[in-house]
């Protein structure tokens, strides 16, 4: 059985030619529907990421604290060490999210829940600068009673304030081998 399409007339044409003819008649194939992820799903993924970030930070803090307890440092040194630790924690947190968002679009928590952050227009990964903007806006927007997250519930593309500012969306990332496109029918791609 040949893979080439066989029209009723009996003349065989190649699959590429058949695709070209079909596109001319029916228009370009519709992009697979995209499913934008909601508040609860994103919160679960974020909780997993927060657990990872804090677990690593706690392990490092305990290790450094136990090592430091063997020595008698002056208070000034302790204050400086604590300040350095705070900065390191902030850098670790920022680096964690910025690196994952800008490289794969998925943090470990996102990968577990199968969602990813991407550009709202192209669907591609975002650049580190936009990832940093997204994180900073997220941190700021949650301060007033998580006000920056409420738009996720009512926006058609389920975007929070940080998504709107950074021009990103959070979409489902089903495994490639499943073959089933994620999303609900009728939703616009990106």
């Amino acid at each position, binding site marked *: 059985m040949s893979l080439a399409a066989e029209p009723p007339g009996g003349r065989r044409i190649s699959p590429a030619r058949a695709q070209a003819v079909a596109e001319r008649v029916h228009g370009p194939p519709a992009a697979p529907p995209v499913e934008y*992820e*909601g*508040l*609860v*799903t994103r919160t679960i993924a974020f909780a997993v990421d927060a657990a990872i970030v804090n677990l690593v930070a706690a392990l490092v803090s305990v290790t450094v604290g136990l090592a430091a307890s063997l020595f008698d440092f002056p208070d000034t040194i302790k204050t400086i060490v604590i300040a350095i630790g705070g900065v390191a924690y902030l850098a670790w947190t920022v680096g964690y999210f910025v690196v994952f968002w800008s490289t794969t679009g998925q943090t470990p928590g996102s990968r577990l829940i199968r969602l990813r952050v991407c550009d709202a227009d192209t669907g591609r990964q975002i650049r580190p600068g936009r990832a940093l903007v997204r994180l900073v806006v997220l941190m700021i927007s949650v301060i007033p009673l998580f006000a920056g997250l409420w738009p996720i*519930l*009512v926006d*058609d593309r*389920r975007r929070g304030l940080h998504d709107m500012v950074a021009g990103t969306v959070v979409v489902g990332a089903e495994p490639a081998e499943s073959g089933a496109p994620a999303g*609900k029918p009728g939703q616009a791609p990106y």
Partner: protein
Amino acid sequence: MSDRFDNRDASGAARDAAWLGGWLAGVALRPAVRIARAGGRAAESVTLGTVDLVLESRVAGEVVDRIADSALVQRGVGRALSGPLVEQIGRDLVRYAVLERVAETVLEGDLIDRTATRVLDGPELERVVDHALDSPAMERLVRRVIESKLLDEAVARLLESEELWLLVDEIARSPAVTEAITQQSLGFADQVAGGVRSRSRNVDDWLERKARRALRRAPAPGSDAQ
């Protein structure tokens, strides 16, 4: 010089006369030799024919049977077996390495290979195995082996052996096993995550519907809200 010449002529004449005599005798005796050869061949044929006749005759078989059944032969065989003949034959067999030579000849030839190939390829072996496996006797035998103390003892000894646990360790450390365990663990984690994801998406849809209804906004496009 003339005497010498005369002596040579005389000896040459004698040699020629002897050769001539021999030739004449050969010619004269040739028919007799032919007759003798023909007679020998005829006698040989007659002898063989007679032997065949004797061997195929009923009388000869009867004679052999009577001889074999006779007390004389039995006594002779018994005497031979009870006497030193057996030991002598055994010593000769050992001395001349008869058994080794026979075994060597058998092993050097392809008789064993051909026999084994014939047995393994033939349907007889399969039929015998099928018959043995289907037989109630085999079932009883297996049941008896399983219920016997022998199996318990064997299992106990196997569990006590250090080699078994070394083997188990080797298998557990093998890349195939560790990879299988990892895959299974990942599969389980993925299954759990899939369940969480599915439920959280349902909650998302429900929350979204409530929020939109509270704000009197239209349902999200593509949502299955009523």
